[in-house]
């Protein structure tokens, strides 16, 4: 039963991965409106890059010059990881600011 489900998921996964990464990119862009941090735009860009990678892996294999699609996919994924890391560093910095403000507020209110 589980093996069958895994097989179905494996067959669907290339299409599902593209759809899910697109969804993540859109969700991050919408979240940016609520949380007002440019990090979410970068997060969205990274998700779009991952979507491009998933799309490349979905298409039949090709080779252009000395570069094949697997190398290009790895390159895109590498840039995506860099963008993801940068976005998360910005979000962590934002978290530190929020935490500092909360501690200050509690201190002023005398807990």
């Amino acid at each position: 039963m589980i093996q069958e489900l895994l097989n179905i998921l494996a067959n669907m996964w290339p299409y599902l991965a593209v759809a899910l990464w697109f969804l993540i990119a859109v969700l991050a862009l919408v979240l940016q409106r609520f949380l007002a941090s440019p990090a979410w735009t970068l997060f969205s860009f990274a998700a779009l890059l991952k979507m491009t990678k998933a799309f490349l892996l979905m298409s039949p294999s090709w080779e252009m010059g000395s570069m094949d699609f697997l190398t290009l996919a790895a390159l895109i994924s590498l840039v995506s990881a860099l963008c993801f890391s940068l976005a998360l560093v910005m979000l962590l910095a934002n978290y530190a600011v929020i935490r500092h403000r909360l501690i200050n507020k509690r201190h002023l209110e005398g807990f």
Partner: protein
Amino acid sequence: MLTFLIVGAFPVDYHNTREQLLLLEDAFWLVAGTLLLAYAIAMFRLSFSKLRLGFLLMALAGWMIVLDKFLSLFQRLGLFSLPSWQEVNFIFEVLFTLGLSLGLLSLLFVFIQLSRQSIRRIAARAPHPSPPYSENYISTKPSQAR
């Protein structure tokens, strides 16, 4: 597209460097996963109960990608080899993508709910406008009915 054109223009043997590129990719995703895990745990501790589900799912996604890339890195370096590595890698990837998307969806749902509540609260606090017409209202203008 630009990357495609630039890389296609230079006749470099990328087949030898592909393994290095994949190794570098795994290392960077390991860093990104660790940062995602740190951010999700930090926000989970800071936020209130409604938002916690989203951050918990994001933390699980972060944990999945950390495990996946850690194992992948060790596998590529030849430190150990798992017999069913493809299946394990696939399951980790699915859980990472699903966890991240569901976590963001949950966060968005809560934020939309919160913004609706705050709009209702602001509308309830606002003073009611005076009615445009009342029985005591006496017009100073001559009537147009005639």
